[in-house]
Protein backbone atom coordinates (compact mmCIF):
# COMPACT_ATOMS: atom_id res chain seq x y z
CA UNK A 1 0.00 0.00 0.00
CA UNK A 2 2.58 2.58 1.08
CA UNK A 3 5.38 3.37 -1.34
CA UNK A 4 8.98 2.61 -0.50
CA UNK A 5 9.82 6.22 0.33
CA UNK A 6 6.98 6.43 2.85
CA UNK A 7 8.06 3.16 4.44
CA UNK A 8 11.60 4.43 4.70
CA UNK A 9 10.43 7.68 6.30
CA UNK A 10 8.19 5.88 8.80
CA UNK A 11 11.07 3.68 9.93
CA UNK A 12 13.38 6.69 10.19
CA UNK A 13 10.84 8.55 12.37
CA UNK A 14 10.59 5.59 14.71
CA UNK A 15 14.36 5.63 14.97
CA UNK A 16 14.12 9.31 15.96
CA UNK A 17 15.02 11.14 12.73
CA UNK A 18 13.65 14.70 12.87
CA UNK A 19 14.07 15.52 9.17
CA UNK A 20 12.15 12.41 8.20
CA UNK A 21 9.26 13.63 10.32
CA UNK A 22 9.16 16.94 8.47
CA UNK A 23 9.39 15.21 5.10
CA UNK A 24 6.50 12.90 5.92
CA UNK A 25 4.37 15.82 7.10
CA UNK A 26 5.06 17.61 3.80
CA UNK A 27 4.32 14.46 1.84
CA UNK A 28 1.00 13.71 3.54
CA UNK A 29 -0.35 17.14 4.40
CA UNK A 30 -2.31 17.59 1.17
CA UNK A 31 -3.52 14.01 1.26
CA UNK A 32 -4.93 14.42 4.77
CA UNK A 33 -6.46 17.75 3.80
CA UNK A 34 -8.11 16.20 0.71
CA UNK A 35 -9.64 13.37 2.72
CA UNK A 36 -10.88 15.80 5.38
CA UNK A 37 -12.31 18.16 2.77
CA UNK A 38 -14.28 15.31 1.22
CA UNK A 39 -16.17 15.02 4.53
CA UNK A 40 -16.23 18.56 5.90
CA UNK A 41 -17.62 21.58 4.14
CA UNK A 42 -15.06 24.16 5.08
CA UNK A 43 -11.43 24.28 3.98
CA UNK A 44 -10.39 25.78 7.34
CA UNK A 45 -11.96 22.88 9.24
CA UNK A 46 -10.34 20.45 6.81
CA UNK A 47 -6.95 21.98 7.47
CA UNK A 48 -7.47 21.74 11.23
CA UNK A 49 -8.42 18.09 10.92
CA UNK A 50 -5.45 17.39 8.64
CA UNK A 51 -3.07 18.88 11.22
CA UNK A 52 -4.69 17.07 14.14
CA UNK A 53 -4.60 13.79 12.24
CA UNK A 54 -0.96 14.12 11.26
CA UNK A 55 -0.07 14.97 14.84
CA UNK A 56 -2.03 12.08 16.21
CA UNK A 57 -0.77 9.57 13.64
CA UNK A 58 2.89 10.49 13.77
CA UNK A 59 3.08 10.76 17.54
CA UNK A 60 1.51 7.29 17.84
CA UNK A 61 3.43 5.71 15.01
CA UNK A 62 4.53 2.85 17.26
CA UNK A 63 0.93 1.64 17.39
CA UNK A 64 0.94 0.99 13.63
CA UNK A 65 1.48 -2.75 13.31
CA UNK A 66 2.00 -2.94 9.55
CA UNK A 67 3.99 -0.01 8.16
CA UNK A 68 2.93 -0.94 4.64
CA UNK A 69 -0.62 0.06 5.57
CA UNK A 70 0.35 3.59 6.55
CA UNK A 71 -1.89 5.27 3.95
CA UNK A 72 -5.16 3.51 4.84
CA UNK A 73 -4.30 3.93 8.51
CA UNK A 74 -3.81 7.68 8.32
CA UNK A 75 -6.85 8.04 6.03
CA UNK A 76 -8.96 6.31 8.67
CA UNK A 77 -7.61 8.65 11.36
CA UNK A 78 -8.51 11.68 9.21
CA UNK A 79 -12.00 10.33 8.53
CA UNK A 80 -12.63 9.63 12.22
CA UNK A 81 -11.44 13.08 13.24
CA UNK A 82 -13.50 14.76 10.52
CA UNK A 83 -16.64 12.89 11.56
CA UNK A 84 -16.00 13.76 15.20
CA UNK A 85 -15.70 17.41 14.22
CA UNK A 86 -18.96 17.22 12.29
CA UNK A 87 -20.71 15.66 15.26
CA UNK A 88 -19.27 18.26 17.58
CA UNK A 89 -20.50 21.02 15.36
CA UNK A 90 -23.92 19.42 15.34
CA UNK A 91 -23.98 19.27 11.60
CA UNK A 92 -23.80 15.56 11.15
CA UNK A 93 -26.96 13.68 10.28
CA UNK A 94 -27.15 10.10 9.12
CA UNK A 95 -28.39 10.76 5.60
CA UNK A 96 -27.21 14.23 4.99
CA UNK A 97 -28.04 15.92 1.75
CA UNK A 98 -25.94 18.92 0.90
CA UNK A 99 -28.58 20.08 -1.57
CA UNK A 100 -30.84 21.01 1.32
CA UNK A 101 -28.16 23.11 2.96
CA UNK A 102 -27.14 25.25 0.03
CA UNK A 103 -28.52 28.39 1.65
CA UNK A 104 -25.86 28.29 4.36
CA UNK A 105 -22.76 27.46 2.41
CA UNK A 106 -20.23 29.69 0.76
CA UNK A 107 -20.62 30.45 -2.91
CA UNK A 108 -24.20 31.60 -2.70
CA UNK A 109 -23.29 35.23 -2.20
CA UNK A 110 -23.57 37.73 -5.01
CA UNK A 111 -19.82 37.89 -5.69
CA UNK A 112 -18.34 34.58 -4.74
CA UNK A 113 -14.60 34.10 -5.00
CA UNK A 114 -13.19 31.21 -7.01
CA UNK A 115 -12.48 29.38 -3.76
CA UNK A 116 -16.11 29.77 -2.68
CA UNK A 117 -17.35 28.56 -6.05
CA UNK A 118 -15.10 25.52 -5.88
CA UNK A 119 -16.32 24.76 -2.36
CA UNK A 120 -19.90 25.15 -3.51
CA UNK A 121 -19.25 22.78 -6.41
CA UNK A 122 -17.50 20.22 -4.20
CA UNK A 123 -20.43 20.16 -1.84
CA UNK A 124 -22.72 19.17 -4.68
CA UNK A 125 -20.70 16.00 -5.26
CA UNK A 126 -21.09 12.77 -3.35
CA UNK A 127 -18.45 12.03 -0.70
CA UNK A 128 -16.78 9.42 -2.91
CA UNK A 129 -16.74 11.71 -5.95
CA UNK A 130 -15.24 14.49 -3.86
CA UNK A 131 -12.54 12.24 -2.46
CA UNK A 132 -11.56 10.88 -5.89
CA UNK A 133 -11.55 14.36 -7.43
CA UNK A 134 -9.47 15.87 -4.63
CA UNK A 135 -6.97 13.01 -4.54
CA UNK A 136 -6.56 13.00 -8.31
CA UNK A 137 -6.75 16.67 -9.23
CA UNK A 138 -5.29 18.22 -6.10
CA UNK A 139 -2.86 15.65 -4.73
CA UNK A 140 -1.93 14.08 -8.05
CA UNK A 141 -2.79 10.48 -7.29
CA UNK A 142 -3.05 7.88 -10.04
CA UNK A 143 -6.21 5.86 -10.56
CA UNK A 144 -4.64 2.56 -9.50
CA UNK A 145 -3.49 4.18 -6.23
CA UNK A 146 -6.93 5.66 -5.57
CA UNK A 147 -8.55 2.32 -6.37
CA UNK A 148 -6.23 0.53 -3.98
CA UNK A 149 -6.83 3.05 -1.18
CA UNK A 150 -10.61 3.29 -1.53
CA UNK A 151 -10.95 -0.42 -2.33
CA UNK A 152 -12.63 0.20 -5.67
CA UNK A 153 -11.53 -0.77 -9.16
CA UNK A 154 -9.43 1.51 -11.32
CA UNK A 155 -12.33 1.81 -13.75
CA UNK A 156 -14.61 2.84 -10.92
CA UNK A 157 -12.15 5.51 -9.91
CA UNK A 158 -12.11 6.85 -13.49
CA UNK A 159 -15.89 6.82 -13.52
CA UNK A 160 -16.15 8.76 -10.26
CA UNK A 161 -13.65 11.30 -11.53
CA UNK A 162 -15.47 11.70 -14.84
CA UNK A 163 -18.82 12.33 -13.12
CA UNK A 164 -17.24 14.66 -10.55
CA UNK A 165 -15.51 16.77 -13.19
CA UNK A 166 -18.67 16.96 -15.27
CA UNK A 167 -20.70 18.17 -12.30
CA UNK A 168 -18.01 20.62 -11.26
CA UNK A 169 -17.71 22.14 -14.73
CA UNK A 170 -21.45 22.61 -14.93
CA UNK A 171 -21.54 24.29 -11.53
CA UNK A 172 -18.53 26.49 -12.23
CA UNK A 173 -19.90 27.69 -15.57
CA UNK A 174 -23.20 28.57 -13.90
CA UNK A 175 -21.46 30.49 -11.11
Amino acid at each position, binding site marked *: MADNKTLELVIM*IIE*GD*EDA*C*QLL*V*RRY*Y*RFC*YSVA*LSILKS*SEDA*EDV*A*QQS*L*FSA*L*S*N*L*NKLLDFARFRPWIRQIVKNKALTMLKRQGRHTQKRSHYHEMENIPGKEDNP*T*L*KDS*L*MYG*LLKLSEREREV*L*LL*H*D*MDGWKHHQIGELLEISETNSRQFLFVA*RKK*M*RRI*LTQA
Partner: protein
Amino acid sequence: MMSKNRIDLSPLDPTIDKNRFDVVVKKLTRNILSARRISTVSVLFGAFIPLMATALMVLMTAMSLFFMYAGKSGNSQQKVKTLTFAKWVQGEKRSTVWKEVQMIKVRK
Protein backbone atom coordinates in the same frame (compact mmCIF):
# COMPACT_ATOMS: atom_id res chain seq x y z
CA MET B 1 2.41 17.20 -16.24
CA MET B 2 -1.04 18.56 -15.55
CA SER B 3 -3.85 16.95 -17.54
CA LYS B 4 -5.91 19.35 -19.61
CA ASN B 5 -9.10 17.82 -18.17
CA ARG B 6 -8.01 18.49 -14.63
CA ILE B 7 -10.12 20.86 -12.53
CA ASP B 8 -7.91 23.59 -11.13
CA LEU B 9 -8.39 23.22 -7.39
CA SER B 10 -5.38 25.34 -6.48
CA PRO B 11 -7.44 28.04 -4.68
CA LEU B 12 -8.37 25.33 -2.17
CA ASP B 13 -4.85 23.97 -1.88
CA PRO B 14 -3.34 24.82 1.53
CA THR B 15 0.20 24.24 0.26
CA ILE B 16 0.03 26.93 -2.43
CA ASP B 17 1.08 29.70 -0.03
CA LYS B 18 4.58 28.36 0.47
CA ASN B 19 5.61 30.58 3.39
CA ARG B 20 2.50 29.80 5.37
CA PHE B 21 2.82 26.10 4.58
CA ASP B 22 6.45 26.09 5.75
CA VAL B 23 5.45 27.66 9.05
CA VAL B 24 2.63 25.14 9.53
CA VAL B 25 4.90 22.20 8.73
CA LYS B 26 7.65 23.38 11.08
CA LYS B 27 5.25 23.96 13.95
CA LEU B 28 3.51 20.65 13.39
CA THR B 29 6.81 18.78 13.19
CA ARG B 30 8.02 20.38 16.42
CA ASN B 31 4.82 19.37 18.21
CA ILE B 32 4.99 15.83 16.87
CA LEU B 33 8.60 15.40 17.91
CA SER B 34 8.02 16.70 21.43
CA ALA B 35 4.97 14.45 21.79
CA ARG B 36 7.02 11.48 20.63
CA ARG B 37 9.77 12.32 23.16
CA ILE B 38 7.26 12.57 25.99
CA SER B 39 5.65 9.28 25.05
CA THR B 40 9.05 7.55 24.92
CA VAL B 41 9.93 8.85 28.39
CA SER B 42 6.56 7.83 29.79
CA VAL B 43 6.91 4.35 28.30
CA LEU B 44 10.33 4.00 29.91
CA PHE B 45 9.04 5.18 33.28
CA GLY B 46 5.94 3.08 32.89
CA ALA B 47 8.14 0.01 32.64
CA PHE B 48 10.72 1.14 35.20
CA ILE B 49 8.37 1.86 38.12
CA PRO B 50 6.58 -1.54 38.18
CA LEU B 51 9.96 -3.23 37.73
CA MET B 52 11.40 -1.40 40.75
CA ALA B 53 8.28 -2.13 42.81
CA THR B 54 8.55 -5.84 41.99
CA ALA B 55 12.23 -5.89 42.85
CA LEU B 56 11.51 -4.18 46.18
CA MET B 57 8.77 -6.67 47.00
CA VAL B 58 11.05 -9.61 46.24
CA LEU B 59 13.76 -8.08 48.44
CA MET B 60 11.34 -7.49 51.31
CA THR B 61 10.02 -11.04 51.08
CA ALA B 62 13.54 -12.41 51.04
CA MET B 63 14.49 -10.35 54.10
CA SER B 64 11.40 -11.30 56.04
CA LEU B 65 12.00 -14.98 55.27
CA PHE B 66 15.59 -14.64 56.32
CA PHE B 67 14.82 -13.12 59.73
CA MET B 68 11.71 -15.22 60.36
CA TYR B 69 11.82 -17.55 63.34
CA ALA B 70 12.56 -20.99 62.00
CA GLY B 71 11.45 -23.08 64.98
CA LYS B 72 13.38 -25.49 67.13
CA SER B 73 15.35 -28.30 65.62
CA GLY B 74 18.05 -30.50 67.08
CA ASN B 75 20.06 -29.56 70.12
CA SER B 76 19.92 -25.85 69.50
CA GLN B 77 21.15 -24.74 72.91
CA GLN B 78 24.41 -26.41 72.37
CA LYS B 79 24.76 -25.04 68.89
CA VAL B 80 24.09 -21.49 70.03
CA LYS B 81 27.15 -21.59 72.19
CA THR B 82 29.45 -22.58 69.46
CA LEU B 83 28.03 -21.10 66.31
CA THR B 84 28.35 -17.59 65.05
CA PHE B 85 26.13 -15.80 62.61
CA ALA B 86 28.76 -16.10 59.93
CA LYS B 87 28.57 -19.85 60.11
CA TRP B 88 25.09 -19.72 58.67
CA VAL B 89 26.65 -18.42 55.55
CA GLN B 90 28.89 -21.43 55.48
CA GLY B 91 25.86 -23.72 55.40
CA GLU B 92 24.63 -24.08 58.99
CA LYS B 93 20.90 -24.42 59.73
CA ARG B 94 18.84 -21.25 59.85
CA SER B 95 17.20 -22.23 63.16
CA THR B 96 20.63 -22.36 64.77
CA VAL B 97 21.55 -18.96 63.48
CA TRP B 98 18.22 -17.58 64.70
CA LYS B 99 19.06 -18.71 68.21
CA GLU B 100 22.41 -16.99 67.96
CA VAL B 101 20.73 -13.77 66.96
CA GLN B 102 18.24 -14.03 69.81
CA MET B 103 21.09 -14.50 72.28
CA ILE B 104 22.83 -11.41 71.08
CA LYS B 105 19.61 -9.42 71.46
CA VAL B 106 19.12 -10.66 75.06
CA ARG B 107 22.69 -9.77 75.98
CA LYS B 108 22.17 -6.20 74.81
